[in-house]
């Protein structure tokens, strides 16, 4: 009994001694992101726009959906047909969280407090990935349920259908990855317009250009880029089979990690 008591008398000082820790950095970066009005606007829109679009889509298709299978397919379509809308919003969100550091040089203060810098980038990655994944997941589930309710014929029960679950989870995963890529490119390029343009270029323009080259190996490489792989993850009729799906997840993870690693290297080396 004496040992813990003795420790209690002396330890609190060192226990509470301020110390740089990753958990603290994540809390700090989360607060910084929440302190910007753009974060709230973009997350709210990313949450609500798909739900509204799904509702409108379902209302317009209600008469065409004859039979339970057709209703379920229409409900899934109401979620996936416009999934580029929230994707654009999270690209802007990720970019702004990155470039906010370079607005008026706020990064000076950030890196004076965390001179190793890389943990700051990783903390931002955690914050953006978690926020976007949660919002996307909630948005996709609610969108499906709203569309299914409108379409009726038992489509609501389809939420437990493996294809629906895969689409919802795949969309959340892909959007989180894209937001992280946008964040990383925003940190590298330091300009919001430039960051958004390069992210969209990386996702859509680069694969299209590569696939225009009539060489098999180039085409296969282009298909591993996050843009094309994202379609597999987000759509119900992507290549079937567990292996292909796992491959898509892996490809998106690896590319995201590569872009984040580049951002870490650039941020660590560059004078601020």
């Amino acid at each position, binding site marked *: 009994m004496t040992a813990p008591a003795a420790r209690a008398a002396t330890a609190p000082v060192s226990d509470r001694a*301020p110390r*740089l820790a990753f958990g603290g950095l994540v809390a700090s970066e989360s607060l910084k992101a929440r*302190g910007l009005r753009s974060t709230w606007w973009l997350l709210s829109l990313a949450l609500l726009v798909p739900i509204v679009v799904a509702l409108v889509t379902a209302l317009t298709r209600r008469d065409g959906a004859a039979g339970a299978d057709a209703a379920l397919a229409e409900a899934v379509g109401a979620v996936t047909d416009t999934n580029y809308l929230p994707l654009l919003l999270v690209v802007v969100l990720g970019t702004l969280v990155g470039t906010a550091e370079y607005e008026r040089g706020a990064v000076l*203060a950030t890196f*004076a407090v965390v*001179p190793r810098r890389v943990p700051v980038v990783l903390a931002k990655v955690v914050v953006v990935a978690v926020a976007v994944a949660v919002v996307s997941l909630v948005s996709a589930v609610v969108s499906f349920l709203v569309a299914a309710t409108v379409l009726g014929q038992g489509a609501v029960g389809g939420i437990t259908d493996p294809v629906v679950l895969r689409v919802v989870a795949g969309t959340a995963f892909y959007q989180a990855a894209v937001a992280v890529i946008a964040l990383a490119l925003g940190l590298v390029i330091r300009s919001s317009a430039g960051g958004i343009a390069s992210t969209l270029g990386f996702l859509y323009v680069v694969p299209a250009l590569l696939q225009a080259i009539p060489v098999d190996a180039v085409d296969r490489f282009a298909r591993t880029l996050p843009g094309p792989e994202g379609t597999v993850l987000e759509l119900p009729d992507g290549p079937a089979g567990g292996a292909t799906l796992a491959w898509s997840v892996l490809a998106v993870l690896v590319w995201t990690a590569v872009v984040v690693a580049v951002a870490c290297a650039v941020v660590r080396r560059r*004078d*601020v």
Partner: protein
Amino acid sequence: MIEVERLTKTYGDTLAVDDLSFVVRTGRVTGLLGPNGAGKSTTMRMILGLHRPTSGTVRIDGKPFIDDPAPLTAVGAMLDAHAVHPGRTARTHLRSVALTHRLPAARVDEVLETTGLAAVAGRRIGTYSLGMGQRLGIAAALLGRPRTLVLDEPVNGLDPDGVHWVRELVRGLAVQGTTVLVSSHLMSEMSMTADDVVVLGRGRLVASGTVEEIVAAATGGSVRVRTTEAADALAAEVRASGGAVASTEERVLTVTGLSSDEVGALAMRTGTTLAELVPQHVSLEDAFFELTKDAVEFSTDGASR
């Protein structure tokens, strides 16, 4: 203690800091002085590890700053008061800094109180005046009760009350054992705030030492003597004793190389009646102009060198 050793920084062809060495001592306020473009900010950024030196090293309390497990408690810095996102509130900004080191929210309230920002802490930083932004920068620097404080131009944009407040603050912290490095191009301000000064010109060390030493070194010290009649005998005696004499007006001598005591003794020996015997003190400002006149990057005579 900050030890800067043979620090050099080049940007392309531009040599911003050139083989700079100096020491900032603990428990004293050191002023980093120099005209615009002298390399003050670059030097401070290299001290904080924000710019990579081309060569040379910086140690803070004997080790590189980057290795400190709690950087916020090692060095508190304000490098650019406007380097904060204008969309956040002051409290959010300070709490985000505090969270990195798990400092309690109460500490944020304390520094807001200390810097007089408590009443405006909930306002977006973009709406702040120059002086309020400056106070916020100082608040962030104080947050971790750092052992070393580095402030780049802390009195810029402050009203006379604010200038006085910064002076009292850094002097008080130095007395309590903090190492303080403050940059300025306002010499008169530094002569009242700093114990030691490091003078830069075009990236090079021009002079370093205590304020008194710098003033003495720049001027050599002189004594103004006014006599009631012609003072040729006294002038001859001064020269014979190793002093130098200059005379710009009738019956007035400017003696260098001898103290006023010595000049007085010589006057008595030569039977010269003195009307004035005044040791000449120049201000740090004059000393600074004297020291950096060859080292200003932009001069107003149109010749940029």
